[in-house]
């Protein structure tokens, strides 16, 4: 959930244009020797803060997390830092846990159901808004609101809307004669509830990225198709959809990466419950490390690292597709 619709466009353009070697030779009164030294080191003087930062605040926490997952920690050894090395024990504990299979399934269902519906709705809305009627731009901007709200705000609003007794959703269902559903408190519906809320949050992102993709398709293509007598449905499946494939792939993969990460929403709405009915890897990992009075940092870190592996596989696909669309 932490991205901006601009990312795919910007990164796609992020290759600098032609090299500017002339810059250094153009500087008057400097020997070529210092210039060459400058060309090599000056960039890294500007980059040093970020490199140090990445090492200290990305690489090191990740290393610490890996280390946590390979040692047997108790609260005491966690504070003192003398936990014994235990190899892959934590990973064995985690995969042997009765929650492992449900948590894996929930992670997959949550991720794929969310991005499938988000993408379908986002695509439909993008095609609709691309027709440039009056107010189209304003309404499109308003669609961004769910995506910009703090997750705690969305999650608590949905919690109250889905409340079994006083929620507006059950009241609306009652109007059409459908029985009240225990959205957040029944094991059958908890996962569905968090998926619904997550779809609501993700639709704007899909809409914006796909809309910007639609803008790159030249109008003449559609005009030619219209001359040939293509219907609206044909135009979508024969022109829009194929031409939008690169953008779609990037949207789906970014969606995948961001949805795998979702923790706040589920934790705030259901805490992974009831009876682990909506537990995913992200909430399970938190549950281990912070969810009880007796933290189990080892298994928590192990689950977290499994999640990283899933995210990185998705991420590498994303980078491959993006590279291809740039070149």
């Amino acid at each position: 959930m932490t991205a901006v619709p601009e990312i795919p466009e910007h990164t796609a353009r992020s290759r600098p244009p032609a090299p500017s070697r002339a810059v250094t030779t153009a500087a008057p009164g400097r020997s070529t020797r210092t210039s060459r030294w400058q060309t090599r080191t000056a960039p890294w003087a500007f980059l040093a803060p970020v490199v140090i930062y990445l090492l200290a605040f990305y690489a090191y926490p990740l290393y610490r997390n890996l280390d946590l997952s390979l040692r047997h920690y108790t609260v005491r050894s966690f504070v003192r830092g003398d936990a014994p090395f235990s190899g892959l024990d934590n990973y064995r504990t985690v995969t042997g846990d009765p929650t492992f299979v449900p948590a894996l399934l929930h992670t997959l269902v949550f991720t794929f159901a969310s991005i499938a519906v988000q993408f379908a709705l986002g695509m439909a809305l993008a095609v609709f808004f691309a027709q440039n009627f009056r107010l189209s731009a304003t309404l499109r901007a308003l669609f961004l609101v769910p995506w910009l709200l703090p997750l705690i705000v969305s999650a608590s609003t949905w919690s109250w809307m889905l409340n079994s007794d006083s929620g507006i959703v059950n009241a609306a269902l009652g109007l059409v004669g459908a029985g009240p559903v225990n959205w957040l408190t029944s094991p059958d519906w908890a996962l569905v509830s968090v998926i619904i809320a997550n779809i609501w949050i993700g639709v704007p992102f899909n809409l914006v990225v796909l809309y910007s993709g639609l803008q790159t398709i030249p109008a003449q293509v559609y005009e030619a198709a219209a001359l040939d007598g293509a219907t609206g449905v044909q135009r979508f499946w024969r022109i829009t959809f194929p031409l939008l494939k690169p953008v779609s792939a990037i949207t789906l993969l970014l969606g995948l990466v961001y949805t795998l990460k979702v923790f706040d929403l589920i934790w705030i709405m259901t805490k992974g419950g009831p009876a682990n009915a909506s537990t995913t890897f992200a909430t399970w990992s938190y549950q281990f490390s912070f969810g009880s009075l007796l933290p189990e940092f080892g298994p928590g870190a192990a689950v977290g690292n499994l999640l990283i592996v899933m995210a990185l596989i998705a991420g590498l696909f994303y980078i491959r597709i993006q590279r291809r669309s740039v070149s």
Partner: protein
Amino acid sequence: MTRSWKTVLGLLFTAIMLFPVYWMLNVSFTRDSDMRADPPHVFPFHGTLEGYRAVLDQQLPYLGTSLLIGLGTVVLTLVLSAPAGYALAKLRPRGGGVLGFVLLVAQMIPGIIMAMGFYAIYLRAGLLNTVPGLILADSTIAVPFGVLIFTAFMAGIPDELLHAALIDGATRWRTFVSVVLPVSRNAVVTVSLFAFLWAWSDFVFATTLDGGGGLRPITLGIYQYIGNNNQQWNAIMATAVIASIPATLLLILAQRYVAAGVIAGAVKD
């Protein structure tokens, strides 16, 4: 289908999409006695401000902390990412491609895993429950994004502009501060707005790294309201409304600023 019908349809879709936002506003003004009404009141006819009064009484310090953390994150993000973006876009460093790749991958690491690593480090460093600790952690959400945006934006600055500065005898640092940064104002605003918004909205780092301190951000303020099994939903939703103000402002401001057309004007002059 005529154009005006499309507008009607568009309004309908938008209304459905924004219904939860309306509901948040509606509940924030609803009296306690009407909260459990069946069916729920779709409009707060007997509106009350008691929810907002509760916010002012209890949540002001949280809002202050969030503001401080948000601003701190913005400063840290800008200081780190603007020079890096300049170097990657214009100075063509060796290994720049690798760094760009690392930044892309960095964005994919789940926050909850970063949080666990930070927790282990902060526990020993004594940074748990501190504002600087939370600023550092929150900036990890924004820094990779910031570098990518600055790189993309600064790559569009014409080389002639930078040559001119160098010929006038300016050092690279001088060029960066007095030419590149002013021209990149739009990128600065965009990165600042998003860095602020993400720090303001952060829940993962707050709940793991700031669980027991006195200075807590607003996201934890709302979470505590819910966690205490507090049934004062008007107060919860009123806090939510106030916590949404930065997002609303961003939506208005970003629309003006994100457009990157200023560069062309800078060259003409």
